[in-house]
């Protein structure tokens, strides 16, 4: 079947810079002496540590259990001893520290006995539990827990596997597809088993012909294996940033536009990164939890490459491996369009770290000074969401947040296309981040205020009610007293009457006067 492709609006075509690292095969990064494994490795929850300082652990052994339904497990990336559980700076724009387990490797890399789970002979619940217990999260960068996404009770028709890798410089998915196509495909089929999809569409940007060839060959081979019912298609798509955005890729492959605030599952589609599919295969077919990922190290380095890196490896040791050239003034995590400047190179590699770029002013020139917006509309032309970024800019700048909302600021995916094309060099995305956080803060405040008001009103109502109840109780008691008094009187009278009657039995026929 020939796949008909759809276009998404806008987008840009920046210089790809894939050549720097795409020819370098995946190599294992050397084992660092110390690994820092953060407890938060998913966007929906943390893990709860189940080891204590001094414990000896094996490679692949669970050291943090999922906390809550959204949490995912974390595992020892190598064998060794737990030396500390403390706060360490993380790879996050803020550089804030978070709780991590520090592991000193013993250099022996002794594995825990793997326990594969045959998807064909396991229940859905077992499979979902295993995915959660293997610590699998979306590896495209969002680190959304996979067991939640795949566990949704939605009628899914199409499974989209995202091999677009549209950001410049990054090649980790490209290499993964070239070298481990069969595992990716096997993982995708397990995901199909879980969500009931009838077809798999693997979208790959057409600037990766080797990956397309490798995936196509793997698909042909596995089809020979006689898997029934699932249609696999490898679809080359035009290289146009941000074609690898989940909703953009779904649009390109299926024509479906998933609006902001909705999830693809509502439209019968689910999308997973190739790395996630690969991890699912490793977890089930091989019993290996997620303890490593492929990271591209590129930019201003002597030897750009793609490495299989144990989670918890310090970024600095990875950079040292590639030979950082002089002139490097900062380091980016992620691609140049959506990545961020690392505040510290001591931060560890985590499940969402796909690329490390040594940046120099020559490769990434500082932006020219910001000028006034002339409403030329170039940004609107580039926006893949069809927003009017300059309107959002005017509204954000003037703090007219209601206007920003009306122009759909929360539909913005911060892909950076608008700022990339702006001839006035306005850092548009910064303005939008500012407006979004202000609106969120304002909404929080309003919510807190209305909660406080509700609390106050309910307190008033309670006091009012208690007062009324007290009054009612008092009234009831008074009535009771009165009644009992009245009853007492009546009894006394009756007794008196009785006494009188007893004294004059001859008058017994005449009823006593009722006083």
């Amino acid at each position, binding site marked *: 079947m020939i796949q008909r492709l759809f276009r998404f609006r806008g987008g840009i075509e920046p210089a790809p810079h894939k050549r720097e690292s795409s020819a370098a095969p995946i190599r294992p990064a050397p084992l660092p002496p110390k690994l820092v494994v953060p407890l938060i490795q998913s966007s929906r929850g943390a893990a709860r540590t189940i080891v204590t300082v001094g414990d000896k652990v094996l490679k692949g052994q669970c050291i943090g259990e999922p906390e809550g339904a959204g949490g995912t497990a974390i595992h020892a990336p190598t064998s060794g001893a737990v030396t500390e559980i403390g706060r360490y700076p993380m790879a996050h724009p803020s550089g804030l520290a978070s709780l991590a387990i520090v592991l000193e490797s013993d250099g022996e890399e002794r594995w825990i006995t793997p326990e594969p789970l045959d998807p064909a002979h396991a229940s859905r619940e077992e499979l979902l539990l295993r995915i959660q217990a293997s610590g699998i999260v979306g590896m495209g960068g969002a680190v959304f827990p996979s067991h939640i996404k795949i566990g949704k009770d939605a009628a899914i028709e199409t499974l989209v596997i995202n091999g677009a890798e549209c950001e410049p410089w990054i090649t980790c998915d490209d290499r993964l597809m070239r070298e481990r196509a069969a595992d990716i495909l096997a993982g995708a089929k397990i995901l199909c088993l879980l969500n009931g999809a009838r077809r798999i569409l693997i979208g790959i940007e057409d600037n990766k012909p080797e990956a397309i060839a490798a995936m196509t060959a793997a698909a042909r081979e596995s089809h020979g294996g006689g898997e029934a019912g699932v249609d696999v298609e490898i679809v080359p798509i035009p290289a146009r940033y941000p074609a690898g955005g989940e909703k953009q890729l779904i649009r390109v492959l299926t024509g*479906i536009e998933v609006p902001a605030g909705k999830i693809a599952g509502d439209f019968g589609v689910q999308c997973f990164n190739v790395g996630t599919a690969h991890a699912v295969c490793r977890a089930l077919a091989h019993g290996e939890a997620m303890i490593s990922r492929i990271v591209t190290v590129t930019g201003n380095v002597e030897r750009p490459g793609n490495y299989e890196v144990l989670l918890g490896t310090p970024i600095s040791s990875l950079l040292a491996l590639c030979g950082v050239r002089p002139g490097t003034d900062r380091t980016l995590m992620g691609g140049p369009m959506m990545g961020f400047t690392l505040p510290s190179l001591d931060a560890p590699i985590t499940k969402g770290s796909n690329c490390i770029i040594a940046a120099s002013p020559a490769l990434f020139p500082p932006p020219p000074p910001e000028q006034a917006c002339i409403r030329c509309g170039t940004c609107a032309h580039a926006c893949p969401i*069809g927003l009017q970024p300059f309107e959002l800019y005017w509204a954000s700048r003037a703090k007219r947040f209601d206007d920003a909302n009306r122009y759909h600021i929360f539909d913005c995916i911060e892909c950076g296309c608008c700022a990339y094309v702006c001839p*006035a060099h306005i850092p548009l995305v910064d303005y939008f981040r500012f407006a979004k956080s202000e609106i969120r803060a304002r909404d929080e405040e309003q919510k807190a205020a209305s909660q406080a008001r509700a609390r106050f009103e309910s307190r008033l109502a309670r006091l009012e009610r208690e007062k009324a109840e007290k009054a009612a109780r008092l009234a009831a008691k008074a009535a009771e007293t009165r009644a009992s008094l009245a009853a007492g009187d009546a009894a006394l009278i009756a007794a008196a009457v009785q006494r009188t009657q007893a004294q004059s039995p001859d008058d017994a026929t005449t009823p006593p006067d009722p006083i």
Partner: protein
Amino acid sequence: MSSPHIRQPASVRHIMFTVLLALVPGIAAYVWQIGAGILLNLAIASATALAAETLVLKLRRRPVAITVGDGSALVTAWLVALALPCIVPWWLTVIAALIAIVGAKHLYGGIGQNPFNPAMIAYCAMIVAYPAIMSQWPAAGDTDFAVQLQLILGGSREIDGITGATALDAMRTGLRSHSEVNAILATSAFGFAGGRGWEWIAAGYLLGGGFLLTRRIIAWRLPLGFIAGLGGTAALFWFISPERFPSPLFHLASGGAMLAAFFIVTDPVTSATTPRGKLIFAAGVGIIAWIVRSFGAYPEGIAFGVLLMNICVPWIDRHTQPAVFGQRQETRS
């Protein structure tokens, strides 16, 4: 520093200088057909605009070099000079450029903030303040630079020998005296499409406009909307009564139609910004221009059309917002 970390090589300066470059064919045709006097006017307007821009930015304590260097004041100056008759005295050009830069641009906050097209504000102010001078256009063919120089610099207003009625003027006067369109067109003021000689200048602007379109400097909906608005309305009435209403070709080739189509309504700051809004805005300018030309007190109505539609821009934009990703399909279901 935050994302994105890369940027396309583009700048306001590049846009503005491309627009200036695109004006060159029209100016060359102007020199060829009418005379080199226009070059002097361009120089006067440019010098005034740059000086005024520098001064105002200094007074407002804004960065001078980057803003003056963006070329926007030069674009405004050139459009002012091209909109005025090319034999107006030097001081009129100076006043017009000052009104455009100081009044229409900086009093509203400078580049990007002005709701009205500065060149059209200046043109309207001049036509209201100096109606007599503003109606004196040189006739084509008399390329006597010395006389033009004298008129511009010397202030001599002995102009009978060299001025002639413009095509729009001749058409208006002719129709008012109940002549038929074809008879009017047969007089010496007219060439193959519009005013004799001036039609070549219009062709030059068209050429420059095409260049801007291919370079994606201007949005195609704006010239298209304007040409459809002016030409479409003209075509409708010409079809009904060809002896009383000149053809759409005449309207598009005369006056400032081509300059407006590719250089005036395309001003991004003052035009509508949404796809549908651009069509509505530009078509509105064309329709108003046709109405003023056909029934108004002035021979040319584009400037009024632009300013009137500038007023409507916020309203047009608000009501023509495009559907965002996922919205169209959602409303359908």
